[in-house]
């Protein structure tokens, strides 16, 4: 077996899903005892890469070497056997079990048929001493802070003998002080020879802790750099790419009539921390306002606040007819706000219901879906048939359940029914996420068409091509606040990347 100081080597890894090349000739090399960061935007292929490395998905082609030896991993079990452990972004702990029980869960030490927790306790203490991680093994997980829970997750992986740790956005859920604690733990692990690969979009943190950085963009690894050679601006540019898509050269259709006005909108999350803060913007008729930003910076909360699903603590939302702050979700939709929800399965569809019932969703009670208190089945079916026809939804009939359609066709149904009902304002959250290019182009055309006819659109997207290609104005959301207003015609990758990652903030 070849001696190697490389803990992990991925060579020319390619992985495609129908319609999308998630990983395209990806290369990664991480030395033993190195802390290596992988940065990139949402959809850049980081998660796919990590899933390949953890044996959750086999690559289509390419080679994986662990400690110099070629490795074929079909399941996470294979990866664990090779000393690879993964800490997911969303913790997978049982709240009502103790730390000890959680750590041994799934690999319980036994003596005959009884559980040997004494042995487990001894090993946890040993590991804790070795890596400098303090944990009370008998405390129930529900009483732990987020930072402590993360430590349990890491301990769980170490307990299974991992020497290569994969951390998926470990700092996303932590407060600054916990981030420091995590980093000092990681340093201790490193000192003991553990190799750490972590995914992040927080560039200053990446620069602070890592020994090596690999940048991904559009499924490719575009650069492998040393932190001492780059600054946050350089990284941001690498992440976003040196060439931004060019905006569609189309005459502006923006009018002077304000269709939606938001002022000072603030909403508090758990613990009283604002998840969106002082959001102010206007959308005019015929205008598309794009919200750029790394996901999780308040986009979903903004949508919920606009629709009246989330309580706001300050600020106001107005349509031309007047403020809608006191209206409930149904009334707001009735007042002319259409919505393409970000998660079509969780928020946009009744998968087990026929298409014609799905197209009623959000418009129940309105023509042509209802006659008084009764559902107008014929009206709804005719309407749905029209959506299917005009928006090219491929389906055998309007009576099949929504679950039978492919993602692209489901999305076309959602977009189609919202557009066909002529909203005044359309909130479009990731309208083309996870669908094939054909359906994407069709949806983009529809949005442009509707804009020409005076629709006001709030476009939230992680896809820069979509944002720059469609928007008349870009707002960058970071940490719940609008940190910049940019013109898509002359935005540079460097500025956009800097704002999106919080390196640069416009103070109003």
């Amino acid at each position, binding site marked *: 077996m070849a001696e190697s100081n490389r803990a992990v080597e991925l060579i020319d890894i390619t992985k495609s*899903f*129908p*319609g*999308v090349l*998630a990983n395209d000739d990806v290369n990664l090399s991480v030395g033993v005892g190195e802390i290596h960061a992988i940065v990139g935007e949402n*959809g850049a*292929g980081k*998660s*796919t890469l990590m899933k390949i490395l953890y044996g959750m998905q086999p690559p289509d082609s390419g080679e994986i070497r662990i400690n110099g030896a070629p490795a074929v991993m079909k399941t996470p079990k294979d990866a664990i056997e090779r000393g690879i452990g993964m800490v997911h972004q969303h913790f997978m702990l049982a709240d009502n079990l103790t730390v000890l029980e959680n750590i041994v869960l799934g690999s319980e030490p036994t003596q005959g048929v009884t559980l040997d927790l004494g042995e487990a306790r001894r090993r946890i203490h040993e590991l804790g001493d070795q890596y400098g991680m303090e944990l009370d093994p008998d405390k129930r997980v529900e009483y732990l802070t987020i930072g402590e829970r993360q430590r349990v997750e890491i301990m769980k992986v170490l307990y299974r003998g991992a020497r290569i740790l994969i951390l998926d956005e470990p700092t996303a859920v932590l407060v600054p002080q916990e981030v420091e604690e995590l980093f000092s733990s990681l340093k201790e692990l490193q000192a003991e020879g553990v190799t750490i690969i972590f995914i992040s979009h927080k560039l200053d943190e990446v620069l602070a802790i890592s020994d090596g950085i690999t940048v991904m963009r559009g499924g490719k690894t575009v650069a492998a750099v040393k932190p001492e050679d780059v600054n946050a601006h350089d990284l941001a540019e690498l992440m976003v790419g040196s060439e931004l898509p060019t905006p569609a050269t189309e005459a502006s259709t923006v009018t002077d009539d304000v269709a939606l006005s938001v002022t000072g909108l603030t909403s508090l999350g758990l613990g009283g921390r604002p998840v969106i803060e002082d959001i102010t913007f206007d959308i005019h008729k015929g205008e598309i306002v794009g919200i750029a930003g790394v996901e999780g910076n308040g986009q979903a909360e903004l949508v919920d606040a606009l*629709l009246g*699903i989330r309580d706001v603590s300050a600020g106001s939302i107005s349509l031309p007819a007047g403020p809608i702050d006191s209206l*409930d*979700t*149904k*009334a*707001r*939709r*009735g007042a002319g706000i259409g*919505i393409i*929800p970000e*998660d079509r399965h*969780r*928020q*946009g*569809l*009744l*998968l*087990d*219901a026929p298409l014609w*019932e799905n197209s*009623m*969703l*959000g*418009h*129940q*009670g309105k023509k042509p879906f*209802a006659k008084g*208190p*009764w*559902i107008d*089945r014929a009206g709804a079916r005719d309407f749905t048939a029209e959506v299917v026809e005009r928006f090219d939804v*491929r*389906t*055998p009939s309007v009576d*099949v*359940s929504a*679950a*039978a*359609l*492919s*993602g*692209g*066709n*489901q999305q076309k149904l959602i977009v189609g029914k919202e557009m066909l009902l002529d909203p005044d304002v359309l909130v479009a959250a990731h309208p083309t996420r*996870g*669908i*094939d*290019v*054909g*359906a994407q182009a069709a949806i983009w055309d529809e949005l442009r068409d509707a804009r020409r006819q005076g629709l006001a659109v709030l476009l939230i997207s992680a896809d820069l091509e979509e944002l720059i290609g469609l928007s008349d104005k870009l707002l960058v959301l970071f940490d719940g606040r609008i940190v910049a207003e940019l013109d898509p015609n002359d935005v540079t990758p460097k500025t956009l990347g800097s704002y999106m990652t919080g390196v640069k903030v416009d103070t109003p």
Partner: protein
Amino acid sequence: MIRRIGIALLAPVLALLFAIAVASIALLLVDVNPLEAYSLMWDFGTTSTSAASIINRAIPLYVSAVAVAIGFKMGLFNIGVEGQYLIAALFAAWIGSTFSVWGPLHIAIILLIAITVGAIWAGIAGLLKVTRGVNEVVSTIMLNYIGFAVIGYILGELIIGGDSLIQSTDPLPDSAMIPGLNWIFTALGFTEPRGVELQGFLVIAIVVGVIYHLLVWKTRFGFDLRASGMNPGAARMSGVNPKRMVLYTMLISGGIAGLVGMSTMLGRLGAFTQDFPRQYGFTGIAVALLGRNNAVGMALGALLFGFMDRSALILDLNSIPKEIVQIIQGVVVLAVVIAYELVNRWVKTREIKAASDATASAAHAAEEVTA
């Protein structure tokens, strides 16, 4: 259409056959010829008298199933039908026995009291869920026990106040009793049931079923209800207020539950007594599962349960263990849940295939990517 009904019947029929198979094995184990037992049950169960008795048994089960089903349709599990119908029947009998007016009006008032009391009792669970996030399974179970205790107290202390042997409310005046329907048998040319009166409440039970069907499948409210059950997130986005929906659903479910005891009370007993029939609430859950929350399906399920209860009597007389009926009932409910799942998957695969066939003609098959 015929095809759809065929698919809908497939699961319960499979489940029933499976249950009969299991029961047959049990019978063989105790040295009884299953065919003999079944033919006894069938012969006995299909007489006019049995038919009336079966329907009478099915009525409360059906109403109870409808009450449970309306909760199921929006993802709420009302286990409290038991307590709701008993406490509703107590109040209906207590208040109803204090006055006498024109029959139909008297009956209507009593039914209204029962609906109101059932709705209030279930509404407590709804309120707890909406304001405090208490799971309705837990609260309705607890409310059952509280209900039983309240009934004992009211019946024993407030109404009787003494130590009479059989505790009962004052008997309802004749004007409150719903006339029987035995004339239907003679009108249709069958022999008249002997010793049993087909309960007039049957008409009301049918009306309840029709209203249930229309409400759930044909109204905007029903759409909101089903949407909330299928996908709470999407319902929320569409403008359904989830809290209001929970409360309304519990009120309606409890209101229907209030009617469960009325067929027995206004058709036979004429009072609420200490030994007022119990278990309808729990059996109703099984019937709702069996009938898959479908108005007609639940009626068939209730009749099946009624048939089995009734025909169990003849097994006893022939010294065949009548517990065999309970085995069938239990197994059929378990089996039906599994059978529905299997049939469901099969239907879905067919649909997906049909949809992808429709897509295949296009150059780029649209496919979802979950990267």
